[in-house]
């Protein structure tokens, strides 16, 4: 189990950050308001988690005007994609280990 835990990324251990990375991998570019609606988080909580992902280089933000309103678009970076894959593989192994006979 120790080996599987080592494969997990500390930043993605927070489920909101994990969900954001999965969404951005699936949908390429999502706005802050769309991410907020999908994760059902408050502005402050989502903003803090996105900033953390940005600081770690896992997501990138671009700002544009859509219908004369400022919109922040988020996209996963190549590093983010690679980190997410390793993290999800690690989670999968943990769940697989838990399902094996002999586990409490």
């Amino acid at each position, binding site marked *: 189990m120790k080996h599987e835990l080592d494969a997990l990324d500390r930043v993605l251990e927070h489920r909101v950050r994990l969900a954001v990375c*999965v969404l951005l991998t699936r*949908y390429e*570019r999502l706005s802050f308001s769309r991410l907020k609606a999908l994760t059902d988080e408050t502005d402050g909580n989502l903003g803090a988690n996105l900033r953390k992902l940005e600081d770690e280089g896992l997501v990138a933000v671009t700002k544009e005007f859509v*219908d004369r309103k400022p919109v922040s*678009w988020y996209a996963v970076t190549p590093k983010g994609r690679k980190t997410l894959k390793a993290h999800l593989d690690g989670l999968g192994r*943990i769940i697989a280990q838990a399902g094996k006979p002999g586990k409490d």
Partner: protein
Amino acid sequence: MTDDKQAHDDLSYVRSVLHRAENTAESPASIYFLWAAITFFGFAIIDVAPKQTGFYWMIAAPLGGVLSAVLGHRAGRAKGHSSRREGVVHAMHWAGLMVGIVLMVPLLLTHVIAVDDFPRLILLVIALSYYTAGVHVDRRLIPVSFVLVGCYLLTVFVRDLPQLWTVTGAILAASLAVAGLFAAARVRRDA
């Protein structure tokens, strides 16, 4: 909480978020209304000016496709959702339908299919295409595909109905408009 329980809970949360995203990633109402209009005139023209039908669809189908792409892109951006991959999936699906219909024209030209039966065959192909789009792209298209099948059967078994193709076009346009109204209601509810 144990690690495996935590991992399981986190993945359940991610799955629920993805499910929400998939359930709200639908085509905008404007596309349904656009195709309701194109479809109504496209079928009614068979009764009114049958010789112009091919010409009408040669212009209306690709134009409708381009307009749909523009409307879909604009609606996606307004919603905060921009995915080139999804756009490509939509474009490939509907372009495939158009190419399929174009490839059926030789059957008409070589008299394998009677002129009168050609729109019936097209209806069936469109029904199948809407059904697969409903399964893979947007669930709201599934009821429309059932209406298309109903219209196909109507045109096959009630051939003598006056203004058969106008009635067919009106039924299809109504089903697309209803799907569009549901889409608009959903957008209002999510806003």
